[in-house]
Protein backbone atom coordinates (compact mmCIF):
# COMPACT_ATOMS: atom_id res chain seq x y z
CA UNK A 1 0.00 0.00 0.00
CA UNK A 2 1.43 3.36 -0.91
CA UNK A 3 0.48 6.99 -0.68
CA UNK A 4 -3.07 7.54 0.49
CA UNK A 5 -3.83 3.82 0.24
CA UNK A 6 -7.37 3.02 1.24
CA UNK A 7 -7.92 6.43 2.83
CA UNK A 8 -11.40 6.82 1.35
CA UNK A 9 -12.42 3.19 0.82
CA UNK A 10 -12.04 2.16 4.47
CA UNK A 11 -15.00 2.40 6.83
CA UNK A 12 -13.67 5.63 8.36
CA UNK A 13 -12.82 7.11 4.96
CA UNK A 14 -16.37 6.51 3.76
CA UNK A 15 -17.63 8.28 6.86
CA UNK A 16 -15.31 11.21 6.07
CA UNK A 17 -16.96 11.56 2.65
CA UNK A 18 -20.41 11.58 4.27
CA UNK A 19 -19.29 14.15 6.82
CA UNK A 20 -17.48 16.47 4.40
CA UNK A 21 -20.25 16.42 1.79
CA UNK A 22 -22.82 16.81 4.59
CA UNK A 23 -21.10 19.93 5.93
CA UNK A 24 -20.83 21.27 2.37
CA UNK A 25 -24.58 20.78 1.87
CA UNK A 26 -25.19 22.47 5.22
CA UNK A 27 -23.26 25.51 3.97
CA UNK A 28 -25.21 25.44 0.71
CA UNK A 29 -28.52 25.49 2.60
CA UNK A 30 -27.45 28.71 4.37
CA UNK A 31 -26.91 30.42 0.99
CA UNK A 32 -30.09 28.94 -0.50
CA UNK A 33 -32.20 29.88 2.53
CA UNK A 34 -30.65 33.35 2.81
CA UNK A 35 -31.41 34.31 -0.79
CA UNK A 36 -34.91 32.80 -0.72
CA UNK A 37 -35.66 34.69 2.49
CA UNK A 38 -35.47 37.89 0.40
CA UNK A 39 -39.11 37.21 -0.51
CA UNK A 40 -40.01 38.29 3.04
CA UNK A 41 -39.00 41.85 2.13
CA UNK A 42 -42.45 41.88 0.52
CA UNK A 43 -41.58 44.20 -2.38
CA UNK A 44 -43.27 42.13 -5.04
CA UNK A 45 -40.17 39.93 -5.30
CA UNK A 46 -37.95 42.70 -6.77
CA UNK A 47 -35.05 42.11 -4.35
CA UNK A 48 -35.50 38.36 -4.50
CA UNK A 49 -35.34 38.47 -8.30
CA UNK A 50 -32.07 40.43 -8.10
CA UNK A 51 -30.64 37.63 -5.93
CA UNK A 52 -32.01 34.96 -8.25
CA UNK A 53 -30.59 36.77 -11.28
CA UNK A 54 -27.16 36.95 -9.62
CA UNK A 55 -27.26 33.24 -8.74
CA UNK A 56 -28.26 32.35 -12.29
CA UNK A 57 -25.67 34.48 -14.08
CA UNK A 58 -22.55 34.71 -11.88
CA UNK A 59 -19.98 32.25 -13.22
CA UNK A 60 -18.55 31.42 -9.79
CA UNK A 61 -22.04 30.45 -8.62
CA UNK A 62 -22.63 28.41 -11.78
CA UNK A 63 -19.34 26.57 -11.28
CA UNK A 64 -20.33 26.10 -7.64
CA UNK A 65 -23.57 24.56 -8.83
CA UNK A 66 -21.61 21.79 -10.54
CA UNK A 67 -19.61 21.17 -7.34
CA UNK A 68 -22.91 21.16 -5.46
CA UNK A 69 -24.37 18.43 -7.65
CA UNK A 70 -21.18 16.39 -7.35
CA UNK A 71 -21.28 16.77 -3.57
CA UNK A 72 -24.95 15.87 -3.43
CA UNK A 73 -24.48 12.79 -5.61
CA UNK A 74 -21.45 11.72 -3.56
CA UNK A 75 -23.53 12.09 -0.37
CA UNK A 76 -26.38 10.02 -1.86
CA UNK A 77 -24.29 7.27 -3.41
CA UNK A 78 -22.02 6.94 -0.38
CA UNK A 79 -25.12 6.70 1.85
CA UNK A 80 -26.57 4.00 -0.37
CA UNK A 81 -23.31 2.05 -0.34
CA UNK A 82 -22.94 2.35 3.45
CA UNK A 83 -26.56 1.32 4.01
CA UNK A 84 -26.17 -1.82 1.90
CA UNK A 85 -22.91 -2.68 3.69
CA UNK A 86 -24.48 -2.10 7.08
CA UNK A 87 -27.40 -4.36 6.25
CA UNK A 88 -24.94 -7.08 5.27
CA UNK A 89 -23.19 -6.66 8.63
CA UNK A 90 -26.32 -7.95 10.40
CA UNK A 91 -27.91 -10.62 8.20
CA UNK A 92 -30.16 -12.01 10.98
CA UNK A 93 -32.28 -9.35 12.67
CA UNK A 94 -33.30 -9.33 16.33
CA UNK A 95 -36.79 -10.53 17.25
CA UNK A 96 -36.88 -7.75 19.85
CA UNK A 97 -34.72 -4.63 19.52
CA UNK A 98 -35.36 -1.72 21.87
CA UNK A 99 -33.66 1.03 19.87
CA UNK A 100 -35.43 3.89 21.63
CA UNK A 101 -33.72 2.88 24.88
CA UNK A 102 -30.32 3.97 23.62
CA UNK A 103 -30.65 6.33 20.65
CA UNK A 104 -32.87 8.91 18.96
CA UNK A 105 -35.28 7.65 16.29
CA UNK A 106 -34.00 10.16 13.72
CA UNK A 107 -30.39 9.11 14.22
CA UNK A 108 -31.46 5.58 13.29
CA UNK A 109 -33.63 6.80 10.38
CA UNK A 110 -31.17 8.91 8.37
CA UNK A 111 -31.64 6.65 5.33
CA UNK A 112 -35.42 7.00 5.42
CA UNK A 113 -35.27 10.76 6.02
CA UNK A 114 -32.68 11.12 3.26
CA UNK A 115 -34.83 9.13 0.83
CA UNK A 116 -37.83 11.36 1.56
CA UNK A 117 -35.59 14.39 0.95
CA UNK A 118 -34.40 12.90 -2.34
CA UNK A 119 -37.99 12.40 -3.52
CA UNK A 120 -38.77 15.98 -2.48
CA UNK A 121 -35.66 17.18 -4.28
CA UNK A 122 -36.86 15.69 -7.58
CA UNK A 123 -40.17 17.58 -7.19
CA UNK A 124 -38.39 20.74 -6.07
CA UNK A 125 -35.83 20.75 -8.89
CA UNK A 126 -38.61 20.20 -11.42
CA UNK A 127 -40.62 23.07 -9.88
CA UNK A 128 -37.91 25.72 -9.92
CA UNK A 129 -34.46 24.67 -11.12
CA UNK A 130 -35.64 23.18 -14.43
CA UNK A 131 -37.81 26.27 -15.04
CA UNK A 132 -35.06 28.80 -14.34
CA UNK A 133 -32.28 26.92 -16.15
CA UNK A 134 -34.00 25.20 -19.05
CA UNK A 135 -37.64 25.86 -19.87
CA UNK A 136 -37.31 29.55 -19.05
CA UNK A 137 -39.06 32.00 -16.77
CA UNK A 138 -42.01 33.43 -18.74
CA UNK A 139 -42.21 37.01 -17.35
CA UNK A 140 -39.88 39.84 -16.28
CA UNK A 141 -40.33 42.18 -13.31
CA UNK A 142 -40.21 46.00 -13.16
CA UNK A 143 -36.37 45.92 -13.11
CA UNK A 144 -36.27 43.75 -16.20
CA UNK A 145 -35.07 40.65 -14.28
CA UNK A 146 -36.58 37.21 -14.88
CA UNK A 147 -39.54 37.07 -12.49
CA UNK A 148 -38.76 33.89 -10.52
CA UNK A 149 -40.96 35.29 -7.75
CA UNK A 150 -43.97 35.06 -10.07
CA UNK A 151 -43.14 31.40 -10.72
CA UNK A 152 -42.97 30.83 -6.96
CA UNK A 153 -46.32 32.56 -6.43
CA UNK A 154 -47.93 30.45 -9.12
CA UNK A 155 -46.50 27.12 -7.86
CA UNK A 156 -47.53 27.73 -4.28
CA UNK A 157 -51.18 28.29 -5.17
CA UNK A 158 -51.45 24.50 -5.16
CA UNK A 159 -52.24 23.37 -1.57
CA UNK A 160 -50.93 19.84 -2.23
CA UNK A 161 -47.54 21.26 -3.22
CA UNK A 162 -47.50 23.46 -0.11
CA UNK A 163 -48.19 20.43 2.13
CA UNK A 164 -45.50 18.37 0.38
CA UNK A 165 -42.97 21.17 0.91
CA UNK A 166 -43.86 21.52 4.60
CA UNK A 167 -43.61 17.76 5.21
CA UNK A 168 -40.25 17.71 3.42
CA UNK A 169 -39.00 20.42 5.81
CA UNK A 170 -39.85 18.13 8.76
CA UNK A 171 -37.63 15.47 7.13
CA UNK A 172 -34.94 18.09 6.58
CA UNK A 173 -35.10 19.26 10.20
CA UNK A 174 -34.67 15.78 11.67
CA UNK A 175 -32.04 14.83 9.07
CA UNK A 176 -30.03 17.92 10.07
CA UNK A 177 -30.62 17.44 13.81
CA UNK A 178 -28.57 14.25 13.58
CA UNK A 179 -26.40 15.17 10.61
CA UNK A 180 -24.97 18.46 11.85
CA UNK A 181 -23.32 17.23 15.07
CA UNK A 182 -22.67 13.82 13.52
CA UNK A 183 -20.47 15.34 10.80
CA UNK A 184 -18.26 16.96 13.43
CA UNK A 185 -17.97 13.72 15.41
CA UNK A 186 -17.05 11.81 12.23
CA UNK A 187 -14.33 14.29 11.33
CA UNK A 188 -12.91 13.87 14.82
CA UNK A 189 -13.94 17.29 16.11
CA UNK A 190 -15.08 16.06 19.50
CA UNK A 191 -13.74 18.32 22.23
CA UNK A 192 -15.19 18.94 25.68
CA UNK A 193 -14.86 22.72 25.24
CA UNK A 194 -16.72 22.81 21.92
CA UNK A 195 -19.18 19.88 22.05
CA UNK A 196 -21.88 22.01 23.67
CA UNK A 197 -21.46 24.73 21.04
CA UNK A 198 -21.60 22.22 18.18
CA UNK A 199 -24.70 20.48 19.58
CA UNK A 200 -26.43 23.81 20.28
CA UNK A 201 -25.52 25.29 16.89
CA UNK A 202 -26.78 22.09 15.25
CA UNK A 203 -30.18 22.32 16.89
CA UNK A 204 -30.57 26.05 16.18
CA UNK A 205 -29.39 25.64 12.61
CA UNK A 206 -31.74 22.71 11.89
CA UNK A 207 -34.79 24.39 13.37
CA UNK A 208 -34.22 27.87 11.90
CA UNK A 209 -33.40 26.64 8.39
CA UNK A 210 -36.40 24.30 8.32
CA UNK A 211 -38.85 26.87 9.70
CA UNK A 212 -37.62 29.57 7.28
CA UNK A 213 -37.96 27.24 4.30
CA UNK A 214 -41.39 26.00 5.42
CA UNK A 215 -42.56 29.59 6.00
CA UNK A 216 -42.01 30.44 2.31
CA UNK A 217 -44.78 28.30 0.74
CA UNK A 218 -47.05 29.11 3.70
CA UNK A 219 -46.51 32.87 3.33
CA UNK A 220 -47.07 32.75 -0.42
CA UNK A 221 -50.15 30.50 -0.21
CA UNK A 222 -51.90 32.64 2.37
CA UNK A 223 -50.84 35.87 0.69
CA UNK A 224 -48.93 37.09 3.74
CA UNK A 225 -46.29 38.70 1.53
CA UNK A 226 -46.71 40.81 -1.59
Amino acid at each position, binding site marked *: *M*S*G*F*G*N*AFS*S*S*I*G*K*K*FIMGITGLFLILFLIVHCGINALIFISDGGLTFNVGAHFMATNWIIRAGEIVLFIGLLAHIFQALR*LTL*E*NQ*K*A*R*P*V*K*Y*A*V*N*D*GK*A*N*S*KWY*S*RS*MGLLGTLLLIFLVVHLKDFWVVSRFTGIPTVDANGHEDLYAVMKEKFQDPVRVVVYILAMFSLCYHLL*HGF*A*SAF*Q*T*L*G*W*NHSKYNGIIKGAGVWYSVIISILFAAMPIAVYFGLIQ
Partner: protein
Amino acid sequence: MSTGNMNLTLKVWRQKNNNAKGALVDYKLADISPDMSFLEMFDVLNEQLINKGEEPVVFDHDCREGICGMCSMFINGRPHGPKDLVTTCQLHMRSFKDGDTIVVEPWRAAAFPVVKDLTVDRSAFDRVIAAGGFISVNTGNAQDANNLPIPKMQADAAFEAAACIGCGACVATCKNASAMLFVSAKISQLALLPQGQPERYRRVQSMVAQMDAEGFGNCTNTGACEAECPKGISLENIARMNRDFASAKFISEETV
Protein backbone atom coordinates in the same frame (compact mmCIF):
# COMPACT_ATOMS: atom_id res chain seq x y z
CA MET B 1 -29.67 -20.29 46.75
CA SER B 2 -32.84 -18.91 48.22
CA THR B 3 -36.12 -19.82 46.62
CA GLY B 4 -38.16 -16.92 45.41
CA ASN B 5 -41.52 -15.88 44.27
CA MET B 6 -41.02 -14.81 40.68
CA ASN B 7 -42.73 -16.61 37.84
CA LEU B 8 -41.27 -15.86 34.43
CA THR B 9 -41.72 -16.79 30.80
CA LEU B 10 -38.46 -16.96 28.89
CA LYS B 11 -38.21 -16.86 25.12
CA VAL B 12 -34.71 -18.14 24.44
CA TRP B 13 -32.94 -18.42 21.08
CA ARG B 14 -32.04 -22.06 20.49
CA GLN B 15 -29.75 -22.94 17.60
CA LYS B 16 -27.94 -26.26 17.31
CA ASN B 17 -24.93 -24.89 15.43
CA ASN B 18 -23.92 -22.16 13.00
CA ASN B 19 -25.50 -23.91 10.01
CA ALA B 20 -28.75 -24.88 11.72
CA LYS B 21 -31.86 -22.73 11.67
CA GLY B 22 -32.59 -21.29 15.09
CA ALA B 23 -35.83 -20.29 16.77
CA LEU B 24 -37.11 -18.72 19.96
CA VAL B 25 -38.29 -21.42 22.41
CA ASP B 26 -40.62 -20.70 25.34
CA TYR B 27 -39.72 -21.83 28.88
CA LYS B 28 -41.78 -21.30 32.04
CA LEU B 29 -39.78 -20.73 35.23
CA ALA B 30 -41.32 -20.72 38.72
CA ASP B 31 -40.02 -19.67 42.14
CA ILE B 32 -37.15 -17.51 40.90
CA SER B 33 -35.51 -15.38 43.59
CA PRO B 34 -35.23 -11.65 42.86
CA ASP B 35 -31.72 -11.84 44.37
CA MET B 36 -30.47 -14.19 41.67
CA SER B 37 -28.29 -12.86 38.90
CA PHE B 38 -29.59 -13.29 35.35
CA LEU B 39 -27.04 -16.05 34.75
CA GLU B 40 -28.04 -17.86 37.97
CA MET B 41 -31.60 -17.80 36.66
CA PHE B 42 -30.26 -19.48 33.51
CA ASP B 43 -28.43 -22.03 35.72
CA VAL B 44 -31.81 -22.92 37.27
CA LEU B 45 -33.34 -23.26 33.82
CA ASN B 46 -30.47 -25.48 32.67
CA GLU B 47 -30.72 -27.74 35.75
CA GLN B 48 -34.39 -28.23 34.99
CA LEU B 49 -33.64 -28.96 31.34
CA ILE B 50 -30.94 -31.49 32.30
CA ASN B 51 -33.31 -33.19 34.77
CA LYS B 52 -35.86 -33.51 31.98
CA GLY B 53 -33.20 -34.98 29.71
CA GLU B 54 -33.15 -31.96 27.38
CA GLU B 55 -30.14 -30.04 26.03
CA PRO B 56 -29.19 -27.16 28.35
CA VAL B 57 -28.97 -23.64 26.88
CA VAL B 58 -25.39 -22.82 25.91
CA PHE B 59 -24.27 -19.35 26.96
CA ASP B 60 -20.92 -17.65 27.54
CA HIS B 61 -19.84 -16.69 31.05
CA ASP B 62 -16.67 -16.71 33.10
CA CYS B 63 -15.89 -14.44 36.04
CA ARG B 64 -19.48 -13.47 36.89
CA GLU B 65 -18.01 -10.32 38.46
CA GLY B 66 -18.61 -8.01 35.52
CA ILE B 67 -14.97 -7.68 34.50
CA CYS B 68 -14.13 -10.46 32.03
CA GLY B 69 -16.40 -9.59 29.11
CA MET B 70 -17.59 -13.13 28.43
CA CYS B 71 -21.32 -12.88 29.15
CA SER B 72 -23.27 -11.63 26.21
CA MET B 73 -27.05 -11.90 26.16
CA PHE B 74 -29.36 -9.58 24.21
CA ILE B 75 -32.21 -9.25 26.73
CA ASN B 76 -35.56 -7.71 25.75
CA GLY B 77 -33.91 -5.84 22.89
CA ARG B 78 -30.87 -4.55 24.79
CA PRO B 79 -27.38 -5.98 25.29
CA HIS B 80 -26.83 -6.99 28.94
CA GLY B 81 -30.47 -6.17 29.66
CA PRO B 82 -32.32 -3.11 30.93
CA LYS B 83 -29.78 -1.70 33.42
CA ASP B 84 -27.06 0.78 32.44
CA LEU B 85 -23.39 0.08 33.08
CA VAL B 86 -23.77 -3.60 34.02
CA THR B 87 -22.97 -6.88 32.33
CA THR B 88 -25.51 -9.71 32.21
CA CYS B 89 -23.84 -11.46 35.14
CA GLN B 90 -24.33 -8.35 37.29
CA LEU B 91 -27.95 -7.98 36.25
CA HIS B 92 -30.30 -9.24 38.95
CA MET B 93 -33.81 -10.62 38.68
CA ARG B 94 -35.08 -7.75 40.84
CA SER B 95 -34.74 -5.64 37.68
CA PHE B 96 -37.70 -7.63 36.31
CA LYS B 97 -41.25 -8.11 37.52
CA ASP B 98 -43.15 -11.22 38.49
CA GLY B 99 -44.98 -12.53 35.43
CA ASP B 100 -42.61 -10.87 32.91
CA THR B 101 -41.85 -12.37 29.54
CA ILE B 102 -38.12 -12.04 28.78
CA VAL B 103 -36.74 -12.49 25.27
CA VAL B 104 -33.10 -13.59 25.18
CA GLU B 105 -31.15 -13.61 21.92
CA PRO B 106 -27.47 -13.94 20.98
CA TRP B 107 -25.42 -10.96 19.70
CA ARG B 108 -26.37 -10.58 16.06
CA ALA B 109 -23.63 -9.60 13.60
CA ALA B 110 -22.12 -11.18 10.52
CA ALA B 111 -18.73 -10.86 12.24
CA PHE B 112 -20.04 -12.72 15.33
CA PRO B 113 -21.37 -16.05 13.98
CA VAL B 114 -23.54 -18.07 16.37
CA VAL B 115 -21.68 -21.09 17.74
CA LYS B 116 -24.65 -22.52 19.62
CA ASP B 117 -27.76 -21.05 21.26
CA LEU B 118 -26.65 -17.79 22.92
CA THR B 119 -22.90 -18.23 22.34
CA VAL B 120 -21.30 -16.34 19.46
CA ASP B 121 -17.75 -16.44 18.12
CA ARG B 122 -16.11 -13.13 19.04
CA SER B 123 -12.63 -14.03 17.78
CA ALA B 124 -12.98 -11.21 15.23
CA PHE B 125 -12.11 -8.92 18.18
CA ASP B 126 -8.98 -10.99 18.90
CA ARG B 127 -7.84 -10.58 15.31
CA VAL B 128 -8.39 -6.81 15.47
CA ILE B 129 -6.20 -6.68 18.61
CA ALA B 130 -3.57 -8.92 16.99
CA ALA B 131 -3.43 -6.50 14.05
CA GLY B 132 -1.95 -3.74 16.21
CA GLY B 133 -3.50 -3.42 19.65
CA PHE B 134 -0.18 -3.74 21.44
CA ILE B 135 3.15 -1.97 21.99
CA SER B 136 6.49 -3.46 21.01
CA VAL B 137 9.02 -3.35 23.87
CA ASN B 138 12.60 -4.53 23.88
CA THR B 139 13.50 -6.85 26.74
CA GLY B 140 15.71 -5.60 29.53
CA ASN B 141 15.31 -3.89 32.85
CA ALA B 142 12.16 -1.90 33.35
CA GLN B 143 13.03 1.78 33.67
CA ASP B 144 11.76 3.89 36.53
CA ALA B 145 8.11 4.68 35.87
CA ASN B 146 8.65 8.29 36.91
CA ASN B 147 10.88 8.79 33.87
CA LEU B 148 7.74 9.01 31.78
CA PRO B 149 5.61 11.80 33.20
CA ILE B 150 1.98 11.54 32.05
CA PRO B 151 -0.56 14.31 32.72
CA LYS B 152 -3.32 13.16 35.04
CA MET B 153 -6.12 13.91 32.54
CA GLN B 154 -4.32 11.92 29.87
CA ALA B 155 -3.74 8.97 32.20
CA ASP B 156 -7.40 9.02 33.28
CA ALA B 157 -8.65 9.07 29.68
CA ALA B 158 -6.35 6.17 28.79
CA PHE B 159 -7.59 4.25 31.82
CA GLU B 160 -11.22 4.89 30.92
CA ALA B 161 -10.59 3.57 27.39
CA ALA B 162 -8.75 0.58 28.85
CA ALA B 163 -11.84 -0.31 30.89
CA CYS B 164 -13.29 -1.90 27.74
CA ILE B 165 -13.79 -5.62 28.43
CA GLY B 166 -14.38 -6.51 24.79
CA CYS B 167 -17.83 -8.03 25.40
CA GLY B 168 -19.19 -6.85 22.05
CA ALA B 169 -22.31 -5.10 23.39
CA CYS B 170 -21.45 -2.11 21.18
CA VAL B 171 -21.56 -4.28 18.06
CA ALA B 172 -24.69 -6.07 19.28
CA THR B 173 -26.69 -2.91 19.84
CA CYS B 174 -25.42 -0.85 16.88
CA LYS B 175 -27.99 -0.78 14.09
CA ASN B 176 -25.07 -1.28 11.70
CA ALA B 177 -23.22 -3.91 13.78
CA SER B 178 -20.25 -1.54 13.79
CA ALA B 179 -17.26 -2.27 16.05
CA MET B 180 -15.95 1.29 16.14
CA LEU B 181 -16.45 1.82 19.88
CA PHE B 182 -14.45 -1.31 20.72
CA VAL B 183 -11.70 -0.63 18.18
CA SER B 184 -11.45 3.03 19.14
CA ALA B 185 -11.13 2.17 22.84
CA LYS B 186 -8.33 -0.28 22.10
CA ILE B 187 -6.57 2.31 19.93
CA SER B 188 -7.11 5.15 22.40
CA GLN B 189 -5.77 3.37 25.47
CA LEU B 190 -2.38 3.26 23.72
CA ALA B 191 -2.61 6.47 21.67
CA LEU B 192 -3.03 8.48 24.89
CA LEU B 193 0.15 7.18 26.53
CA PRO B 194 3.80 7.84 25.63
CA GLN B 195 4.47 4.09 25.25
CA GLY B 196 1.90 3.95 22.45
CA GLN B 197 3.39 6.76 20.34
CA PRO B 198 5.99 4.96 18.17
CA GLU B 199 3.36 2.70 16.61
CA ARG B 200 0.42 5.10 16.92
CA TYR B 201 -0.27 5.79 13.22
CA ARG B 202 0.67 2.33 12.04
CA ARG B 203 -1.63 0.84 14.68
CA VAL B 204 -4.73 2.82 13.74
CA GLN B 205 -4.39 1.88 10.08
CA SER B 206 -3.81 -1.83 10.75
CA MET B 207 -6.60 -2.19 13.30
CA VAL B 208 -9.14 -0.30 11.18
CA ALA B 209 -8.20 -2.42 8.13
CA GLN B 210 -8.70 -5.60 10.17
CA MET B 211 -12.01 -4.30 11.55
CA ASP B 212 -13.22 -3.72 7.98
CA ALA B 213 -11.98 -7.13 6.85
CA GLU B 214 -13.99 -8.84 9.61
CA GLY B 215 -17.23 -7.52 8.11
CA PHE B 216 -18.33 -5.13 10.85
CA GLY B 217 -20.67 -2.33 9.71
CA ASN B 218 -19.98 1.39 9.44
CA CYS B 219 -20.64 3.87 12.24
CA THR B 220 -23.54 6.32 11.84
CA ASN B 221 -23.06 8.05 15.20
CA THR B 222 -26.37 6.99 16.74
CA GLY B 223 -24.59 6.74 20.09
CA ALA B 224 -26.33 3.45 20.98
CA CYS B 225 -22.94 1.82 21.70
CA GLU B 226 -21.97 4.42 24.29
CA ALA B 227 -25.42 4.19 25.92
CA GLU B 228 -25.27 0.39 26.19
CA CYS B 229 -21.58 -0.12 27.00
CA PRO B 230 -21.31 -1.80 30.43
CA LYS B 231 -18.06 0.08 31.01
CA GLY B 232 -19.23 3.49 29.82
CA ILE B 233 -16.71 3.79 26.98
CA SER B 234 -17.13 7.25 25.42
CA LEU B 235 -17.81 8.24 21.80
CA GLU B 236 -14.83 10.58 22.22
CA ASN B 237 -12.69 7.52 21.50
CA ILE B 238 -14.28 7.12 18.05
CA ALA B 239 -13.54 10.78 17.27
CA ARG B 240 -9.94 10.27 18.43
CA MET B 241 -9.61 7.17 16.23
CA ASN B 242 -10.99 9.12 13.26
CA ARG B 243 -8.51 11.96 13.91
CA ASP B 244 -5.62 9.52 14.17
CA PHE B 245 -6.80 7.76 11.02
CA ALA B 246 -6.90 11.05 9.12
CA SER B 247 -3.45 11.98 10.44
CA ALA B 248 -2.11 8.58 9.46
CA LYS B 249 -3.52 8.71 5.94
CA PHE B 250 -3.05 12.37 5.06
CA ILE B 251 -0.14 13.62 7.18
CA SER B 252 2.05 10.73 8.30
CA GLU B 253 4.73 9.76 5.78
CA GLU B 254 4.80 6.22 7.08
CA THR B 255 2.57 3.82 5.12
CA VAL B 256 1.28 0.48 6.33
